[in-house]
């Protein structure tokens, strides 16, 4: 249960929360820009990388040539999808830490 004190504080915050002002603030615009600059290009990249495999296997036989042993390039490309997914996961986790710092700043500014 929240104490009366914190309820009072929350009500105060809600009455004064001006979302438009937050959106227009420098820190928030910076957060949106940083997120966009990371998410948009990488999303385009992974979708292109992902669809290249079925497009190549459907419309050509280039990936059927052997990379080494009996393993063809199709399998190498398939494994590369796993590596790509994990790498982009790690990259996002690292990048998101900087988003979190900005969020903290925005929340502080909004409350202060």
């Amino acid at each position, binding site marked *: 249960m929240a104490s009366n004190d914190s309820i009072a504080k*929350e*009500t105060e*915050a*809600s009455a004064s*929360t001006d*979302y*438009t002002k*937050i*959106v227009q603030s420098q820190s*928030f615009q910076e*957060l*949106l820009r940083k*997120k966009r600059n990371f*998410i948009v290009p*990488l*999303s385009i990249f*992974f*979708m292109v990388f*992902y*669809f290249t*495999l*079925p*497009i190549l*296997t*459907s*419309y050509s036989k280039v*990936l*059927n040539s052997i990379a*080494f*042993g*009996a*393993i*063809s390039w*199709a*399998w190498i490309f*398939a*494994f590369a*999808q*796993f590596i*790509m*997914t*994990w790498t*982009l*996961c790690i990259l*996002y*986790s690292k990048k*998101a830490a900087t988003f*979190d710092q900005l*969020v903290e700043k*925005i*929340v502080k500014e*909004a409350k202060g």
Partner: protein
Amino acid sequence: MNILAFILFLIIVGLTLVITYFASRRTKTTADFYTADSSLTGWQNGWAIAGDYMSAASFLGIAGMVALSGFDGFFYSIGFLVAYLVVLYIVAEPLRNLGKYTLADMIAARFNEKKVRGVAALNTISISTFYMIAQLVGAGALIKLLLGIDYLYSVIIVGILMTVYVVFGGMTATSWVQIVKAVLLMAGTFIISIIVLAKFDFSVIEMFKQMKTATPLGADFLNPGNKFKDPLDTLSLNLALVLGTAGLPHILIRFFTVKDAITARKSVVYATWIIGIFYIMTIFLGFGAAAFVGYDKIIAANAAGNMAAPLLAEAIGGDFLFAFVSAVAFATILAVVAGLVLSAASAFAHDFYGHIIRKGQATDKEQVVAARWASIGVSVLSIILALFAQNMNVAFLVSLAFAVAASANLPIIVFTVFWKRFNTAGAVTGMIVGLVSSLLLVFLSPNVWSPVEGAAIFVGEPLFPLANPGIISIPIGFIAAIAGTLLSSKKADAKKYDEILVTANTGMKDPI
């Protein structure tokens, strides 16, 4: 009947009932019931997401498909995994910040109108039901094969168990059943993979070399194109795989079981590692089954290849490994259907009953009671449907669920967060058109119509040539949402969008 398998089934069922007993003592409020009071850690939720996601279709289906068709089966593994980048980059954090219990909560946070919530709930219930029937039909067939219990009784047993988990234990029990099952499934798959690899002297290169002669497909086994011959259909399937996950309601409600967006992100990252490692191992399952069980024996047990993994366990590990893998497959089905019941029941109880019928005035106790009755209702309905659907193609039902999720839910989730002009008309149009178009295209497709008797549900020429509707229905869903928005005279509420933008990105929101 295999006595050892039966005993392991009983042990796993006993374990899940113990979990449910402890969870039920903690399930008192609506937040407990729908979200385990958002108390899971990122690590726990990561395993639970993996447990929810690695369904029997993944475990048994992909292993069978790789065993019978080689490379093409692996497309599913890739698509199911890469889909998590869409979830991580675009959906998970805004969803956690905007939503409370259900997907409809998120959309209703921006469009506070009953019809938006109603249509979103309808989509959730449709998708969950298709998915659930698929799991139940699969469960019935599997248990019949493993234990020799009749289809009718198998479905009823699974149905009763899943109802017990959800009704008594809510999200807490469901989550822990999924976590336990995910750990068991990973362990079983790992053991089989190691034994398979050992048979090839721990050399992947040697394994690939031997696979060239191990199957009736010969060297072609290792090349794409054995199963998916139509390029457009292949692309359509891949599109639905990569975009469908981000619209699946039972996966999306898993983000409400953690306390904030940061933990939601962490759980997706953990889930991606677990799921990725699992899907890599599907190669060993599939290759192993092809090499050590053999095409004829796999087909003889089940034409779709669904028994490849259990048969492989028996071939390389004897009775105990067979019993263990069969019991794990059973636990997999239980966990996944429990998650599905919960997502459909939440949509009924929280969105239809709580918000539309009672206009948000129901007490906490009334809501929990409603949610429990909704769970029973959903379970009974899906058991009855599963009994009628006994002879339906399971893959057809799963592809339907993925296509509907990607066509009807994803456009709305994306536009709610990222498009300022998006309005109520666009949301409702997008959801309805996405739902109807994906359903319609599947009903006109070769899944339903085939000139060969017995190959599909009806005999006749399919009016729509593709088995996977995604490549048409997903763009239709997006276009309908855009068109609905632009054609409506109502302007979007700019102030409301600012609020959504702030909440989605920071988690700040006014107390209700």
